[in-house]
């Protein structure tokens, strides 16, 4: 357990269930300039094929979301109007109405995808990261709806030029680079240090200081996403890849208080057994000898 100073405000507590020595990312969205160097570095290092080119027409985000061949995704949120729908007449802190965030696999302390995996393909590594063993995965796809963050996906191809390999893929936190003592490609390439790599406990301390500084500077909404209070809730116990956000998580397409899906397994099983007994009794009463 990380021993960080607990404060009373949600999103500022900074407590995480990360195991000692676990490594991860701190993605500080206040430093992101939306250059997508992380997306490119990730594709290059991991030799991920290109996605089908498309134009969303909504923002500078033509990547869309995380997927089997997209392990970093920079979200662009242009806050054209304020909460009441008016165009702002004065600029807020950072003199910009842009929010940018480089999204990535959260490497959950308790990971829904890993719990769901029936083949044991998804494992926790010696770095406490969550990795899909490509020689084991058989593409059953159960991890996909089991991820509360919409990260992992099957590579089923794009239906045109490229044929997928049918297996589940997501960020490995550059397992091969970690083995060689290097930091992950995205963190290495990030020109503003918006993506920082390190031990989760160190990063969490750094994040708390950064949030305190931001709040002093007038960024009232600054908070940590990925501790036990926000993002790492409901049995997930924290995210090894966590974020500093300045707006509610929903704005970045992140669930505020997700839950580990497997928490439902035991109550759902008990309800099913109870129903089996009730309807089984109905069958006994209907079919008995008279």
């Amino acid at each position, binding site marked *: 357990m990380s021993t960080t100073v607990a404060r009373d405000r*949600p999103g500022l507590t900074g407590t995480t269930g990360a195991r000692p020595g676990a490594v991860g990312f701190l993605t500080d969205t206040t430093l992101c300039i939306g250059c997508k160097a992380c997306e490119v570095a990730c594709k290059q290092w991991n030799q991920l094929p290109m996605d089908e080119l498309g134009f969303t027409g909504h*923002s500078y985000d033509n990547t869309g979301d995380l997927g089997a061949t997209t392990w970093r995704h920079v979200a662009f949120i242009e806050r054209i109007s304020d909460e009441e729908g008016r165009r702002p007449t004065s600029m807020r802190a950072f003199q910009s109405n842009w929010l940018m965030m480089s999204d990535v696999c959260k490497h959950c302390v308790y990971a829904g995808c890993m719990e769901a*995996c*029936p083949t044991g393909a998804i494992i926790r590594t010696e770095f406490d990261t969550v990795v899909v063993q490509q020689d084991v995965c058989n593409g059953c796809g159960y991890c996909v709806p089991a*991820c509360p963050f919409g990260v992992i996906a099957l590579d089923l191809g*794009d239906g045109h030029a490229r044929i997928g390999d049918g297996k589940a893929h997501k960020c490995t936190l550059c397992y091969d680079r970690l083995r060689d003592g290097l930091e992950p490609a995205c963190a290495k390439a990030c020109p503003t240090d918006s993506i920082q790599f390190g031990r989760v406990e160190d990063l969490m301390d750094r994040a708390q200081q950064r949030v305190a500084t931001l709040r002093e500077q007038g960024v009232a909404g600054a908070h940590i996403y990925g501790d036990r209070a926000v993002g790492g809730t409901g049995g997930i116990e924290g995210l090894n890849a966590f974020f500093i956000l300045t707006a509610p998580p929903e704005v970045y397409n992140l669930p505020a208080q997700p839950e580990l899906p497997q928490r439902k397994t035991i*109550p759902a099983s008990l309800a099913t057994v109870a129903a*089996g007994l009730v309807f089984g009794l109905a069958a006994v009463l209907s*079919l008995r000898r008279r």
Partner: protein
Amino acid sequence: MTAYERRWETRRGGGRSAGDEARESYYGLPVIHRAPWRWEIPTYFFLGGIAGASYVVAAIADLVGGREERPIVRVGRYVSLATLIPSPLLLIRDLGRPERFHHMLRIFKVRSPMSVGTWGLTVFGAFVTLSALIQAAEDGLLDRFPPLARLLRGLPRRLIAALGAGPALFVSGYTGVLLAATAVPFWTKNYLLMGPLFVASALSNASAAISLILSLAGRGDHRALRKLERLHWITSAGEALLLAAVRRNSGPTIARPLNEGRLGQVYRRGVLGAGLGLPMLLGAPGAWLGRRLPRGVTALAALLTLIGGALLRYLIVTAGHRSADDPQATFELTRARDR
């Protein structure tokens, strides 16, 4: 439709501006990924449910019934085998890498409903095969292999039925638990109802399948048919109640797929109307008033139930996909409550 095209599909429909959508979510894009399953999975849910439940019906008829119930036992065992055989084939076909299906059997993982389900299905497969072989031996179908037929006839038939009923009930219901243990709003919000709904529907479908065959075979087992009709009626009523509870429990946002568009029609007219209401109406005189129904009516009611059962699985899976694509459904489940 490719995954890429679907990525943008959800936000095209509403005709809302980027600004509108960005206030409530990230341009209306899905928060989570929908399950990548194709038609094979709901089809397996339907057939596997019948396989499990018809084994249960046959086992119970064997254990508590008398001579009159023998046709139910016999048909139930064959139906169970016939619907079980395609099940693993469908599951393997849906895999991204079908040749690696045996990787499912590398480990046993209690936390993963799919792992437990794979093993449950494997164990159940052994019971179904054995019980069907015993039935075949009793029916004289294995007389060309006298030692085998003698061996099978000598096995403790009722003990095997009693032991197999557990895995059979498991196979008919675990798929509901499997759906509940995901981040998909429609499935996980109804986590206490999915398994019971699948059990009820499986038993209703199985009794319908058996009575369809018995009524088409046209033998003189009216008493057995009437008992089956009663079970069919009770389980259909349970299914209808559970389905209504699912809609109510979901709340307006998560229940949206049940209320809107073609899928709403499938829910109201297909599953509730043609699949549950109509067969219950047709079967009530036989089940409760002791009337002897024309065989055509019994067969029609059974057929409608089976179509309704298939539609139910399609409905539940598709409604899950729709709710996964709807960011507001996910946010409703995950919104911060303490701020």
